[in-house]
């Protein structure tokens, strides 16, 4: 987790953002070492690495005074570095042979300020108690991989991005998502039916399923009401009912 040096950098960044030139200079010096380490193994040549360091520092110096950081300074620094690196390897750079420092700002550093809007929206729509209880249920019934995939997907991450983040292929991510959903729904149907509107809501969902021509099988129907149901039948039933149920 964040250490004292990171805290010190955050303080320097705040002072620099307020116009303190000494703080900015100290901040850039501290950043340089980190950037040199980052680019050294990634750029094609040492000269290119040095250019990338300069370019990143230039952007930091340009943007910091106008930016209210909503992430730790080091995160912000490395995001800019990553953007510079991607630009450096981009087709435009390779083919047009434009000097790197003369490229326009193609990655929109200011866009960095927009991150996490979706997540903050999620925070607003859930009451904390429900969140905590659902969190506990997911931890209880899902595997680590299912839990992570469910979490990320619930925060509107794309399956491809989840796959990249977790080092899986997209088919595996999808499979974990389906299994995780089925397990959580089955748990809610079995143990927290009140969240779904109680027996009446479940019965109503069963009737709607039947009307839509997708009735539950006898085994699935039994699983909904038995005290110790067959989990496979219960999950299958819960998945079928899911589109007609809402967490209340």
């Amino acid at each position, binding site marked *: 987790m964040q250490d004292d040096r990171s805290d010190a950098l955050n303080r320097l960044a705040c002072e620099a953002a307020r116009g303190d030139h000494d703080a900015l200079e100290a901040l850039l010096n501290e950043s340089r070492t980190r950037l040199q380490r980052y680019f050294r193994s990634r750029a094609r040549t040492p000269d290119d690495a040095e250019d990338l360091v300069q370019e990143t520092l230039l952007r930091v110096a340009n943007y910091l005074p106008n930016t209210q950081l909503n992430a730790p300074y080091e995160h912000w620094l*490395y995001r800019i570095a990553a953007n510079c690196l991607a630009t450096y390897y981009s087709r435009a750079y390779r083919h047009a042979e434009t000097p790197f420092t003369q490229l326009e700002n193609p990655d929109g550093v200011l866009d960095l300020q927009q991150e996490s809007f979706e997540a903050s929206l999620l925070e607003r729509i859930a009451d904390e108690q429900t969140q905590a209880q659902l969190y506990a249920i997911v931890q209880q019934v899902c595997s680590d991989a299912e839990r992570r995939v469910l979490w990320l997907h619930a925060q509107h991450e794309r399956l491809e991005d989840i796959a990249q983040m977790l080092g899986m292929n997209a088919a595996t991510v999808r499979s974990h998502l389906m299994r995780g959903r089925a397990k959580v729904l089955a748990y809610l149907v079995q143990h927290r039916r009140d969240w779904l509107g109680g027996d009446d809501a479940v019965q109503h969902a069963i009737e709607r399923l039947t009307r839509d021509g997708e009735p539950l099988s006898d085994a699935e129907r039994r699983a909904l009401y038995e005290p110790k149901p067959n989990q496979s039948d219960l999950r299958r039933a819960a998945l079928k009912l899911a589109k007609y149920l809402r967490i209340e």
Partner: protein
Amino acid sequence: MRANLAVMAYPSDATDEKHLSAAQILELVERGQRCARYDEYIDHITVCPVCRETYKQLLQAEAVVREARRPRVAPLRWVAPLAAAAAVLALVFIGRALLLPTAPETLALRQQDGVWYERATRLPEWASAAAALFANPPDAPTRSDAAPAQRAVQLLAPNPANRALESLTPEFRWQAVSDAVRYRARLERADTGEPVPLVVEGTQARLAPNTTLQAGARYRLTIEALAAGEVAGEGLTAVYEFRTLTPDEQARLRWARANRQNAPRTCVAMFYQLGCYADAQETLNLLPADDPLAQRWRKVLEAHLR
């Protein structure tokens, strides 16, 4: 469900100001699941949008770097000089082979009076290409530095390390997947997509009665493990590709299997040519570990078997 699950996206105890340090995120980017504290870091990233955004951007930059470093096809202007250089090298090699009929006996592979020998074993005429190939190992295929993604369903037989299917009526067997209640398997021609009927029984599949594969064709096998409640397309999937051998190649494979003790070098190259990488590696183990050519071949085969 997505909308409903959205409400649980953010456990309340993760909303404080604690973040991973940039160094920790970089370690995760560079080492992935080999990172010593992988579970701790990835669990934090799962619930922390700030760290996740940094992680994603660093991962994307890493992917760009990897892509840019992947060897590319040489530009057209280099094709002619490279082809000329290759032709000269080939001529030199062939010339050497022709002009050195009485190579020293110490060489394991030698040509005498137009006939190739490996130690005391006289090689068939069609094995000369393999003998020549052994002395010039191909380049190892370049792969990503990242750890290889493990297939979701592991094929046990035929050995997936071999790209060649020996039998035209193969039986496929795979490792059971926990949670799976049934399996689907699909076999099709890789070039035309024409399906081949399969009979699936548990973790095995065989061709439908009166069905045989075509010799010398590429086939793609897709195995899907379905858990309870999953329908086709929702399960864990693994894809394997094979090539069936022609009768001529079958004969060579039989010869290589019968002569690997007497002519291991030629057989390594022959197995390689046939796509039987597991056999090639097994045969390579018969050679001295410090043999420079054996070491080069080991790298080539490891890259294929990875």
